């Protein structure tokens, strides 16, 4: 599938990586030190590099800096894989230009998972041409997926001054309308039989505008009889992507056929997790499932939402267990429930709150990176 250059002075590690990655259908090129690897880069044109830190002649940090200075390799994924496993080592590797970091204590299966994840991040967009689409997802309900989706949509709607769609794709009783203080008469259910006839006009007729932000809401149905299974979520998502420059999808907490069909349309999937063990488990399972997809989202961004005043897990534990860095962290905000009750996204009603600052930073990062 991909050509991977592994750089390590330990022949046992090279053999282990060759075995593990070859079994995952990747082509493996090995080099025992930095200078040999630098020569191999031009000849072998790797899609990804795995490099150790502690090597003679040239450390992994120096090697990474040299690679980044080579023309055209600014975005080549470099995974640092080292026996130095402290957070400071991860930080130093990232500062040197590495894409990600893994300690050598991880299981071979996790290496494959991480490699596939980095390759998926680096892959050119498989999605259809159109606007920027960002999905918000968690396998666990109650972690704040809709809250983040609504607030991000509000911030983008306000700042970009461009039509932004917020699509609440829950088959029944999604909360995006409630959080925006809207109670639209039309919903997702009105698009359920429109696969062939789904035009921009048909879509526009169902969207409800939010006066303050200009966000156009595709609401989830609130009445059960109007909410049979919607079979054409993929077609709806495609139409939104082609018609609007910015689209936020609030996705249901399940890997249904329709949700999986939307994944390749996403420029970014925000995987939301919270500071508790069940959320951690859900995030781990979701990451593994997404990494195994034939058509994954272009990029998965893990966001830690501090949805409780009494967290039982810290950010560091979450990163250590999931073996990845968080894309962003949203702090706990005690007035969030009040904002939901008032039908005002907190990002609008309380611009001074740390929550709002974090949401604005997350929105900027999602649109920039």
């Amino acid at each position, binding site marked *: 599938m991909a050509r991977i250059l592994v750089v390590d002075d330990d022949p*046992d590690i090279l053999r*282990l990586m060759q075995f593990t990655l070859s079994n995952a259908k990747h082509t493996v090129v090995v080099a025992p030190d930095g200078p040999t690897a630098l020569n191999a880069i031009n000849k072998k044109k790797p899609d990804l590099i795995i490099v150790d830190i*502690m090597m*003679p002649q040239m*450390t992994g940090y120096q090697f990474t800096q040299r690679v980044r200075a080579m023309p055209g390799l600014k975005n080549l994924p470099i995974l640092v894989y080292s026996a130095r496993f*402290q*957070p400071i080592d991860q930080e130093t590797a990232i500062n040197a230009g590495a894409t990600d970091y893994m300690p*050598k204590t991880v299981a071979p299966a996790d290496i494959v998972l991480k490699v596939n994840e980095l390759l998926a991040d680096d892959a050119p967009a498989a999605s259809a041409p159109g606007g920027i689409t960002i999905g918000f997802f968690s396998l666990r309900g109650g972690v704040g997926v809709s809250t983040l989706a609504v607030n991000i949509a509000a911030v983008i709607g306000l700042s970009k001054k461009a039509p932004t769609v917020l699509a609440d794709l829950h088959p029944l009783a999604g909360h995006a309308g409630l959080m925006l203080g809207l109670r639209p008469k039309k919903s997702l259910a009105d698009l359920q039989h429109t696969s062939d006839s789904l035009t921009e006009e048909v879509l526009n007729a169902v969207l409800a505008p939010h006066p303050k932000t200009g966000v156009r809401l595709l609401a989830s149905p609130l009445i059960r009889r109007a909410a049979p299974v919607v079979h054409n979520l993929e077609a709806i998502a495609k139409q939104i992507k082609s018609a609007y420059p910015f689209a936020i999808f609030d996705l249901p907490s399940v890997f249904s056929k329709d949700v999986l069909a939307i994944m390749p349309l996403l420029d970014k999937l925000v995987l939301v997790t919270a500071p508790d063990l069940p959320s951690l488990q859900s995030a781990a399972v979701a990451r593994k499932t997404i990494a195994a997809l034939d058509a994954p989202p272009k990029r998965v961004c893990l966001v830690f939402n501090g949805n409780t005043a009494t967290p039982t897990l810290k950010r560091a534990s979450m990163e250590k267990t999931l073996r990845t860095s968080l894309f962003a962290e949203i702090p706990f905000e005690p007035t969030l429930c009040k904002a939901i009750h008032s039908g005002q996204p907190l990002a609008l009603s309380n611009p001074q709150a740390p929550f709002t600052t974090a949401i604005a930073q997350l929105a900027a990062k999602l649109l920039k990176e």
Partner: protein
Amino acid sequence: MAAPILRQSLLTADIFTSSHRFSAQISVGNRRLADVLNDRMTDFLQVQSVYVSRINTPGEIIGRYDKAALEKRHITFVVLPTETDGLSKEHKYNAFSKSTENIFITLPSFEICGRLEIIGKFDLKAILTIGTTRFMPIFQGTAENSFFPNVQFSGPVILVNKEAVALFSIITED
């Protein structure tokens, strides 16, 4: 292709003094690192492929040496990647008398928090003085530099040099 078998005799660990961090390989043979460190037959620890960092910039490598020897009395603690290597092979657990205490230790330039497992009656002084082992395992430990509190190291087990301990205390829950 058969899965390669890794040599287990070389172990990589982070070894700390009050001023430096050494990431090094230690040849443990068929022993565990705790046994190598507690071996009273030698006051030195032979290491190889040593990468040296200063304690205030612990991510920056300032030197690499193929072979070196460390004087055990100057080692304040060792952070290990797995719990197993921190336990002596002779370490026996007694399910009936084992207890666990959250402890706080000060060492030259470092403060360590973690969990200590004790067999028998808990006696602070006895833990530091009785027995022939120089290094004691602290589980789920975190070491914080006293002068640079943002410099922290943690691991499933930290082997602490008992002879370097200044303060040894129990953390009591309020």
